[in-house]
Each structure stands twice: as structure tokens, then as C-alpha cells.
């Protein structure tokens, strides 16, 4: 199991170093590095893996350290006991602060959290009880032994124990199904929400997790160094943490640990290095990132992969395996018979699933939708057409939940879901594809589809430390891919597929969720005649089982597969009837076919 392996590695290495080096210089640097490693492990989860650009870990490290120092100095609490107290206190503070801060995303989040070290520095330097701009001393070691040797070893072992727990928790989370949620969240927050991931909650959980890890690291720092410098909350301290994380490997927990160790040893390596540390750090970071953006962990992983490949793949004839070959690009839609998965509850064609009542949407002064009313039953395939700019995508976004209408209501099974966010609508059975492909790069097709099969949405992030349901989600995804005849590509990296194949993966993902309402945004775009034909068959099959709303420009395709077609023009619903009327309607013809009369008549 991955987590046990990583933790075991940390424990063994840590114990060995502590016991061998004891209170010598190498040993004390190691203990310091471990304190930082606890912080960077949390950063690997929050910053690296889930791409939450948060710059406040140094503040919480400082909070943990100062907390232990104060409890020790003023309340004579032993540092070891003070650690969980500080952990809980910082956890609560992080919860409060995070609920405000994580409302922002991306760059806004980065700038907001960048303010925190600046504010903290200003506060700390003027706070007398914290020792002002110098710092706070304390006398309580983590381990109160009789001799300096036993104190050093005790401190070291306790810190390693903290790190081991941190690594275990981090790796368990990352390799669980919630780990897949977090990765998807980091890749694209909006798509993740459309796939049912509770993004606000996850972001808050990540913030608390990163902060608590940092606090524990800070507590260990205080209990081993016996002095909390005010520079611990400085922005430069945050920069130092970032260097440790990125040199080691931003997405790898073990990498983050290694990074901390490497950098700390670098600081103390020799007086020459100390003097030139800035130059060395600058060059080190640049070179490492140029070689592999995933840092030392990435470099090691590539080396291992290449070693593994070379020992396995020597062909008997000695002919190199990589002669350039004219590759027949695999067709996007396979020819095997398919059998799409059914939604969990059978669909009653007489039951009205979706009602849009008087929807209107304005952007600034521009009216994009005006009094759109339609109803869809629980089964069937429906087309939505219209000239560009008519509001089709907006309507789809409103039904999907990523855009709120200015007026009107959306009812699902009679319940008003107008203000319900996309992730909760996903839970009610609404699934969709997008015009531009939004898959998670450098993950396999299987994992991308599995995002839609996750059952962990309502669980908290810590619940996965015990039990992970990732295998079940992957099995579900494999089942869908199988039924669609796409099993052959399930292991392939999504970024290596052609655009048409990627579209099919998006479709598979939408279908894997077993939706009751499937919203498709121009799925045929870029597909060939033959592929469109197959897509049409697939859609018709699916329309027999659930409700599909299809936005498309290919009028022939829409007329062939839909049982009813809606046409939007200028934000208004101007046509709502069957395909037979669609083909002959003069209104439709003028809108969609004859709108721009060619300068001279074209043949064909």
C-alpha cells in the first residue's frame, strides 16, 4: 500500500539518522529539516496536488511555534502536551479564516493569502508579549530527558513520529478517491463542480489541512529549537518553504520531504555555501525546474521509469522498437456494439423531468435570454438549435447550474433548483459536456471517466484516511468504457489522444454518471461524416433510456435523432416541434440556412 510504504521509508530513514547522529550537527540539522518537512508535506497536498495557490503556511507555522512557546513559558505546559492544543487552536483559526479566504480562487486567492504573512509580520514585530521583532524563547523541549544526548534523540524521534503521521495522512488522502476529486479540482474548478465535486468545501478542507500541518511543524520547531524567531512568519520564510517544495517535487509528499531535507542541509553545509546560499538556491531551483518541473521527485521517477523500461523491453530480434510507422489514427467512435449504462431509476416518459419557466438573462445591457419556457419528459432526445449568439450555451449553463438566470425558474422533478449550484444538480442526476474539451491532462482516460463515478462527494477529506472507494469508482468507469467499446484506450494518457477521441472521453464521462438529464454541447463538432453517424446512433440509444438535450449546429444530425427540436433566436424560443415540421418550416429555413444570403448562388 502506497501510504504504508512511504511512511515506512520516512520512519526507517528518520530513526536511523536520529540514532546515528544524535546530538551532532548533522543530527540537529536533520531534526530542523523534519520540522519543515511536516509543513511542506501539507503544502504538497494543498499547493502542488490541488493547485490551491495559498501563501499562508508560514503564518500557521509561526502560530504553532509561538503557541507552544507561550504555553510553555506562561503556563509551564510541556511542549509535547502543548502540541495538540496548538493543533486544535490553529485548526479552528484556519477554519474561520479559511471560510473567508477560500471564497476566492486562483490569483485572487494567491494575493489574498499573500497578505497574511505581511500582516502577521507587522503584528508580530510590534507585539511585546511575542518578543517583538526578535522572537520568543522557551525552555521546554519536546522530550525532557536527563542528558543533552537523550534530549536530542528524544526530540528527533518525536519529530520523526509527527512527520510519519503527516506523511501517512497525506498519502492516504492523495491516493484515495477524494485524491482524484482534489486533482480534478486543481485542474479546473468549474468542470470539477459540474462533475459533482463540492468545491467550496474541499477548498476549505485543504486550507485547514495545510494550516494544521504547518502548525504541527511549527510546534515541533519550537520544541526542538527552543527559540521562535520573528522571521518565521515573514514572507521570506514562505519563499523558503516554496523553494523546499518545488525543489523536492510539488505534487509528491515524499518529494516535499526530500526537498526540505536537501535545502536545510544546504543551508548548513559549509561556510562557503552559507555565504553564497542565495546564488546556490537560485541556480539549484532553476536547474531542477528546467530538468523536470516536478522537481527531484520527478527526476527520480523518470529515472526509475527508464530503468524499468530498459530491463523489460528488449525485443528478441534486437530491432529497436521505435521505427517510425505511419500510424492509422484510431477512429474516435469504435465499431463494436455498445450498450450504454442505464440510469439508476427507470425513466417514465410521461413524467415531466425538467421545466424551464420564463427564463431570462441579461449581461450588462444585453439580453441574452428572454422568457424561455420549455418542458422535457424523463425520456427522449431533444435538439436545441439556433444561430450563433442566440443564447443556446447560456440556456444550457442555466439548466446545468453554472449560471444563474436573471428571471424565471428551473424545476427538476417539480422542485425549484434555480439557485442550486452545479455540484448539487449533479447529485440530482444532471450531467453535461462542454464545447471545449475539459479533461484532466496527464491522467488516464479511466481516471478521467472515474471522476464522474465518485461516491465521495459528501464525505469529508479525513474520512478517506481509513477507507478509499477509488477502486469502485474506477470499476464503474471501466464498465462504462467497456460498454462503449472504448476499453482499449482506458489506460492511455488523455493528452495523447486526438481531439475526437477526447470528445468521446468527455461523452463517456457524462454518461458514466448515469444521469437523468444529459446536456450535450455540440458533441459532433469536428467529427467526420461517419463518426457523426455513429454518434447519432449512440445518442438515439441513450435517448431511449434517459432525457438528452442536444445543442448542435449539424441540422441533419439534429433532425435525424431528435423527437422534438427547440430553436432559439435572439434569446427567444421561436420553434418547438418535431423534426418533420423542422425540415419544412420556413422560419427555421430563413433563420438557420438562409440568414446570410451568398453574394452569388453557389452550386451544390
Amino acid at each position: 500500500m502506497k501510504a504504508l510504504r512511504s511512511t515506512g521509508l520516512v520512519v526507517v530513514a528518520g530513526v536511523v539518522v536520529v540514532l546515528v547522529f544524535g546530538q551532532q550537527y548533522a543530527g540537529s540539522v536533520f531534526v530542523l529539516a523534519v520540522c519543515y518537512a511536516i509543513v511542506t508535506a501539507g503544502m504538497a497536498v494543498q499547493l502542488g496536488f490541488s493547485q490551491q495557490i495559498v501563501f499562508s503556511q508560514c503564518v500557521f507555522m509561526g502560530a504553532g511555534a509561538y503557541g507552544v512557546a507561550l504555553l510553555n513559558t506562561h503556563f509551564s505546559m510541556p511542549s509535547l502536551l502543548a502540541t495538540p492544543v496548538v493543533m486544535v487552536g490553529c485548526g479552528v483559526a484556519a477554519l474561520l479564516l479559511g471560510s473567508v479566504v477560500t471564497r476566492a480562487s486562483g490569483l485572487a486567492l494567491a494575493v489574498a493569502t499573500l497578505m497574511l504573512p505581511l500582516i502577521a509580520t507587522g503584528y508580530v514585530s510590534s507585539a511585546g508579549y511575542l518578543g517583538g521583532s526578535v522572537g520568543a524563547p522557551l525552555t521546554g523541549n519536546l522530550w525532557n530527558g536527563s542528558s543533552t544526548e537523550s534530549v536530542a534523540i528524544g526530540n528527533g524521534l518525536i519529530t520523526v513520529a509527527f512527520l510519519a503521521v503527516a506523511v501517512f495522512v497525506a498519502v492516504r488522502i492523495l491516493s484515495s478517491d477524494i485524491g482524484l476529486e482534489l486533482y480534478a479540482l486543481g485542474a479546473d474548478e468549474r468542470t470539477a463542480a459540474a462533475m459533482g465535486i463540492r468545491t467550496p468545501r474541499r477548498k476549505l478542507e485543504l486550507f485547514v489541512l495545510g494550516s494544521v500541518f504547518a502548525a504541527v511543524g511549527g510546534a515541533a520547531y519550537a520544541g526542538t529549537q527552543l527559540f521562535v524567531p520573528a522571521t518565521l512568519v515573514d514572507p521570506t520564510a514562505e519563499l523558503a518553504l516554496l523553494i523546499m517544495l518545488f525543489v523536492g517535487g510539488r505534487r509528491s509528499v515524499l518529494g516535499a520531504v526530500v526537498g526540505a531535507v536537501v535545502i536545510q542541509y544546504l543551508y548548513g553545509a559549509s561556510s562557503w555555501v552559507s555565504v553564497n546560499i542565495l546564488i546556490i538556491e537560485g541556480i539549484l531551483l532553476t536547474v531542477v525546474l528546467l530538468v523536470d518541473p516536478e522537481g527531484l521527485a520527478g527526476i527520480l521517477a523518470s529515472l526509475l521509469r527508464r530503468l524499468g523500461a530498459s530491463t523489460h523491453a528488449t525485443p528478441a530480434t534486437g530491432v529497436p522498437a521505435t521505427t517510425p510507422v505511419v500510424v492509422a489514427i484510431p477512429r474516435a467512435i469504435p465499431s463494436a456494439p455498445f450498450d450504454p449504462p442505464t440510469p439508476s431509476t427507470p425513466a417514465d416518459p410521461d413524467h415531466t423531468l425538467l421545466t424551464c419557466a420564463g427564463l431570462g438573462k441579461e449581461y450588462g445591457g444585453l439580453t441574452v435570454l428572454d422568457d424561455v419556457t420549455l418542458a422535457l419528459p424523463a425520456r427522449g432526445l431533444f435538439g436545441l438549435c439556433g444561430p450563433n449568439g442566440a443564447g443556446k450555451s447560456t440556456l444550457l449553463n442555466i439548466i446545468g447550474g453554472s449560471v444563474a438566470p436573471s428571471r424565471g425558474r428551473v424545476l427538476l422533478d417539480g422542485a425549484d433548483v434555480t439557485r442550486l449550484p452545479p455540484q448539487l444538480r449533479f447529485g440530482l442526476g444532471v450531467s453535461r459536456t462542454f464545447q471545449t474539451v475539459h479533461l484532466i491532462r496527464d491522467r488516464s482516460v479511466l481516471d478521467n471517466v472515474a471522476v464522474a463515478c465518485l461516491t465521495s462527494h459528501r464525505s469529508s477529506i479525513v474520512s478517506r484516511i481509513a477507507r478509499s472507494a477509488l477502486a469502485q469508482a474506477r470499476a464503474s468507469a471501466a464498465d462504462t468504457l467497456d460498454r462503449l467499446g472504448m476499453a482499449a484506450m482506458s489506460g492511455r494518457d488523455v493528452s495523447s489522444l486526438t481531439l475526437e477521441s477526447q470528445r468521446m472521453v468527455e461523452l463517456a464521462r457524462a454518461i458514466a454518471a448515469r444521469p437523468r438529464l444529459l446536456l450535450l454541447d455540440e458533441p459532433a463538432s469536428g467529427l467526420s461524416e461517419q463518426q457523426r453517424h455513429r454518434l447519432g446512433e449512440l445518442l438515439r440509444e441513450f435517448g431511449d433510456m434517459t432525457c438528452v438535450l442536444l445543442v448542435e449546429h449539424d441540422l441533419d444530425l439534429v433532425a435525424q435523432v431528435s423527437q422534438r427540436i427547440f430553436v432559439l433566436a435572439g434569446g427567444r424560443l421561436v420553434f418547438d416541434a418535431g423534426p418533420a415540421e423542422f425540415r419544412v418550416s420556413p422560419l427555421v429555413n430563413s433563420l438557420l440556412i438562409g440568414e446570410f444570403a451568398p453574394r452569388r448562388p453557389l452550386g451544390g
Partner: protein
Amino acid sequence: MKLGNLIIAGLTTGSIYAVFAVCVSVWYRVSNILNLAVGDFAMAGALGVDNLYRVKSWPLPAAIAATLAVVIVFAYLYDLVVLRLAQDGPRRQEGIVITFFFTFALSFFIDGVAKILFGTDVHAAPALWNGGSLTVASSLHIERAGVLVLACALIIGSAFWLYIRYTLGGKAMEACGENPLGARIAGIDTRRYRRHIFVGTAVIAAVFGIVESPITGFTYLSGATISLTGFIAAAYGGFRKPGRALLAGLAIGILEALLGGYVSAEYGDTVLYAILAALVLGWPRAMGFESAVSG
């Protein structure tokens, strides 16, 4: 008049932030990279001139020319070697790593070199315009260096604005950042533009460091703080609009001065940062933040 003097002081420091914000913003527009070393180039400029002039007794014009020449060559080589490999090399990089961390590492490198060459004390380049502070309207005081700073900021800001708006080259430069592939199709040499803008912003930063260092002294570590403020001001300008970055820099400078004067000298900065955080969290779109950064 306290308010007036505060505002002038705020405008002066604000101009400093503003120019660096513009450098960050323009460079980001072209390359989608944030130049976090912009303050370090400024520091190198100031300390370099100081060193050559005061310690080695070069004449001032020679000191300035030599320092800028070194900055130009170094920036050119850095882009040629490192950034080209990172952006166009066999392992193309995208996203947060390249956006932040290469120039982040560069700033460390420059600081380290500066520490060795110039030591750890506070220094400043000599004032280019000598004399005491000027008095305007009988109670408003402004340092001569402050005037230079303001003038430089206005000149630099307007020059960029005119370039982008009214020359084909300026539009081509924008196209590089908007869509590198599309730019190449139109025959625009994106690499050359990026390199020129990188070197250009480095030189502007260095020049500006020389001009404003009489106001604030520099140590080898000052670069980091300036880069930080440049980054923050550019962020409030949305990173892509140099004009807004300029205004954001000025606004932050004035706000800082007012808070320092009216609230408290000690906690003024802290309150400033709290206000900035609140603005970002409360009104992200109004403050110019797009909803998400890629990668």
C-alpha cells in the same frame, strides 16, 4: 498641509510601485510569465552605480552606462538560455511553475551576486538632481528625487501606452501574449519580442532603481520587497493592463502614506495589507481579478 504632503509622499512611493507594476504587467502580457525579479534588477542598478561611482570613483555617466550594459547583457542571456529552454524547449512548461518560479529563482540569484559584490549595508545611488526639497504652494514639499521619480513614471507609463495603442509593433507585442501560435502565423517573431520586452523591462527597472534610490536606500535584499509590491500592484491591475497597474501602484502608495500618517506609523502597513486582502476577497472582479489562473 499634512494631507497634501502625505499625498505627495504617497504619489512618490506609489510611482515606484507603479513602474514596477507596469513592468510586470507588460512582460506578463507578452509572455504569460510574471517577472518576480523586477525589483532585483532595480536594486542591481542602484547598487551597481553606487559601487562604481562611490567606491571605484568612476564618473557618474560611465557608472550608469556600465551598469545598464551589464543588466542588458545579463537579462538577454537569461532569456536566451533559461527562459527559451523553459518555454520553447523540448519539455515545454506551462502553468504555475513557469509563471512564478523561474524568475523567483532568478531573484535569489541576483540577490546573492549583489551580496557578494556590494556587501550587506544600505547604499544608494547618488541623486541625479542635487539640492534640497522643493516647495510648492507654500506648504507642500517634494523631494527633487521625487519629482524625477514621478516624471519617470509618467514617461514610462505613457510610452508603453502609446506603443501598445498606436504602433503596429505594440499590437504585435500584445498578440504574442494573447495567442502565440496565432502571432507566429501572422509572421510575428514571438521569441524575439519576448526577449526584447524582458530586457526592456529589466533595463527600465534598473534605471528606475537608480533614479529612486536616493529616496529609499537599497540593500541586497531590497529587491524582494519591491518585486512583491510590484506583483501586488500588477495583480490589482489584472496583470494584463499596464494602465490599470500604473493606477493601482499609485493608489497603493497613496493609501499607504495616508494610513501611515493618520492611523499609526507602526501599524499603518498592517492595516494597508488588511484592506488589500479585504478588497480582493470582497470584490474580486472589480479589483481586476479573473476568476482563475491556468495551470
